[in-house]
């Protein structure tokens, strides 16, 4: 039930987002000026490179950020993670796929159905406790769910989707 509501809600927000935020073209038309930390490829409409959309940290920061305060099973204590909601990013990119494939720099890969993505979770966190995350501390991007908010986020599946050192996302059919 809750799940269905979430789906419906996500659709509604997906429909509303284009009206309220900066249009996708603004974000992706620019070229990354710093190091590229994320490359999104596959079924997306907005691209700034050959068959992909590349982001540096500044471009991500330009998108509206969302804080998530939670503990994780990999860290000690509660931390405030800040980042771009995945749904928002996909929307900016005009994603039309049904599954995402998230890859880490060590080539860890996991598939995430788009339907499982909420309007505000997970986020692509780039800050922990207000500081950018180093590669040695699972940075620079880490898919974070609000684990403490519900037992639904404390399952093995969710843990496996919490990819740290994220650098690529492929949007699949």
């Amino acid at each position, binding site marked *: 039930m809750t799940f269905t509501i979430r789906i419906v809600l996500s659709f509604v927000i997906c429909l509303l987002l284009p009206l309220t935020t900066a249009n996708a073209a603004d974000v992706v038309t620019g070229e990354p000026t710093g190091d590229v930390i994320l490359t999104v490829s596959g079924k997306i409409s907005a691209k700034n490179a050959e068959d992909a959309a590349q982001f540096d940290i500044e471009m991500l920061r330009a998108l509206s950020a969302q804080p998530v305060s939670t503990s*994780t*099973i*990999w*860290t*000690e204590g509660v931390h405030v993670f800040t980042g771009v909601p995945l749904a928002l990013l996909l929307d900016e990119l005009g994603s039309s796929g049904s599954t995402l494939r998230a890859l880490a*720099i*060590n080539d860890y890969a996991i598939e995430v159905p788009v339907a499982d993505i909420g309007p505000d979770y997970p986020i692509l966190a780039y800050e922990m406790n207000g500081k950018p995350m*180093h*590669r*040695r*501390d*699972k940075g620079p991007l880490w898919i974070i769910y609000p684990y403490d908010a519900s*037992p639904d986020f*404390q*399952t*093995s599946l969710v*843990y*496996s989707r919490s990819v*740290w*050192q994220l650098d690529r996302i492929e949007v699949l059919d």
Partner: protein
Amino acid sequence: MTSSEQQTPAESSLNAQLATAMPNRSRRVIGSALVIAAFLLFSLTGLLGYRVVTNFSGVQPEASDNVMWSLSQVEVDASDFNNAVKEALLNPDIDFNRLRLRFDIYYSRVNTLRSSAHYRKVDAIPAFTASLNRTWDVLQGTIPLIDGPDRALAAALPELDSQGDELREHARILSISGLKYFVQSADDNRAAISRMLLQLAGLAVLLFATLTALAVYVLTIYRKSRMRGVALEQANKRMQTILTTSLDGVIVTDMNGRVLEFNKAAERTFGYKFSEVLGRPIIEMVSPDDALQHHLSHAERIQNRETGTIEGKGRVTLQAKRANGEIFPIELSIQRADDGQQELFIAFLHDISKRVAAENELLETRDRALAGERAKAEFLTVMSHEIRTPLNGLLGNLTLLHDTPLSDDQTRYVRNMDISGRVLMRHVDSVLDIARFQSGALEFDIACTDLGLLLTELINSQIGQAEQQGTQLCWNWVGTRMEWGRTDRAALEQVLLNLLGNAIKFTPQGSVDVEIERLPETEDNKPVIELRVIDTGIGISPDDLDHVFDDFVTSDTSFGRATGGTGLGLGITRRIVEGLGGTIGVESTPGEGSTFWVRLPMEQGRAPGTTPTADAHRPIADKLTVLLVEDNDINREVATALLRKDGHTVVSAHDGQTGVESAANARFDLILMDIAMPGMDGLQATRAIRCGDGASRNVPIIALSANILPQERERFLAAGMNGFLPKPLNIDEMRDALFNLPASPQRTDTQIINTAQLSANRAGMGEEVFQTLVERFRSEVEALITEVSSLTGDSLDTIGARLHTVAGSAAIFGASRLRHTLLAAENSAKAQDRTETRRLLDELPVIWNDTRDKLTSLALAA
């Protein structure tokens, strides 16, 4: 349980309920405990089941999978980093970024192992901790090289490579020890789950057992309640049978009188069907219309538990109404009861109309019989009166005739007529006696009697009669003598005379013996005297023996006719004997003779100092003026003649009215008043004289009547008469009555003091005592006069006793007038006639003046 069941049929249903009431409580406790246990077990099982399910389903937060993944990756990351180092060694121109990336990945992984709480658990394995710390130290030491310039890094490559094997070895240790830990932990988990499953199974078994117990319990309760139901049904059936077969009507109502039960007998009695009366107010249906209000209010009082109702009072008789409106009597009893839910009234009743009818019939029969008896007695009284009146005339005229010059023959005829007349009079008296006994008026004058003398005189008086029959007559004592006995001499004489007369009559040429014996036994502490009259006569047949003492029985019709007699003799004799407290009986053998016996209890008497001698010559009253009121010409003539013979002046009146007029016109010394007269009778005339203001309103009035029943005399006195003379007039009785005439205030001077009485008493007490007593008498009377002079109201009614005392004193001094006035006042005081009492008391001072003067002159004259 079984025992109580076995008892149930033997006891009433009420007792059965009480018997099962006791274990009920403990059984209820058991039931509740079972239910609670089942509930607890069920909850525990549910909880445990949930835990098992959640354990299996992985709903519980589970991070171990991820941890294991991370541990296995440490080795990969370490290997990747080592490979990158080796690659850089072989190719000096290589970009060191790849090496740095591998380091960062490796570092990040190890850091994760160090910082996450979930990996901390594996710290329990010492090898793990040691390897982790060693790895961390190496990595920390490597950071300056990695972050340093490429040249320095290139120079350090061989050193890094040399560390590679050690790091990979540590990574392997980490990985293996982590695996070991998780295998162990999985084992523990499995054990925990199997323990839980075992507990669950145990709980399930317990739950099953509890539910089984509960089922057994419920079954037991069901069985028990079924059995109770059966017992109750049996009790109900028995009750119904009792109600149905009861001969008494039984009605059960609630507190408002609405019918709950109405048995067959009640249906028969009232003619209503149970269905017709069920739930309806019974009182309105079965009460007669006129008694309905009374019954309803009484029922309300019963409801309110007021006292004095018929509830619980046993059987009462009421009128009730049938369905067809017929009113009939019932006998009813009402009880209150409680059936455990509400209060009830139970009425038992039955139709008693047949019984009441029978009783009424019996009563009517009895009343008729009594009325018949009364009519008979009345008839006898009237007849005897009617016979005595002309007989009185006859005998009176014979007395007068006897005093006229007669020849010898005439004198004999007159005497014979006189004898016959008196015999006839005796018969009439016998009849009158019967009437008198019937009315219960038997009075005996018990006095000391010389039994021997009585018998001697009796025998002597009958000897003449016996000699005529050729019969010998004698009497004798048997055993110890008791010369003096306290009894009524006249009555005993009559008894013996009757028996003796009969014996002589039926014993021609035989002998009659009278025996008298004091029996050894006593009755009420009184000696019993038996008198036996033994004849050698014809005897009495056994058939007749039983009723010789009944009224109007003669032994043999033909013989009875030959010997004469009314057949009343023995009946009267029996009544007298019974009246004296004795018994009478007879034994007889036909042809040989009879023995009549009489047993009388009588106290032993004492011989008086002097035997009373024959009557002294009767004093004749002073010459009086007499008014004679009598309607019967002959009687009037006889009475007039008798009175004149004694020197009295007689004025006669032939009826009541004339008498009243004569009494009003002149003052007489005495009025003789016949009672039964046509028109105004004697009583009416007396009242007229007493209430009027004629000249003779206060003079003594003496009744003349053949009716001598005691209650009649009361009536005479009540009407204002002063005395009574029975008819026929007897010269002696008449002289007594006139001599003892009640005083009248207007009497002549000579009557103030009866000098004869005075002088007799004076001589008796001696002169000195006499003078003292006269003085005391004076002060006594004067005190009385002062005392009563102002009395009024109630105190006039209570002065009687005081007056009586003084009257007694007056008698001693022959103060007749004073005495009579005092006695008259006493009588009126007793009768509560206050006007008359006051009037008489007011006369006292004048009378006392006269008396005192006379007394003084007489006292001095001595």
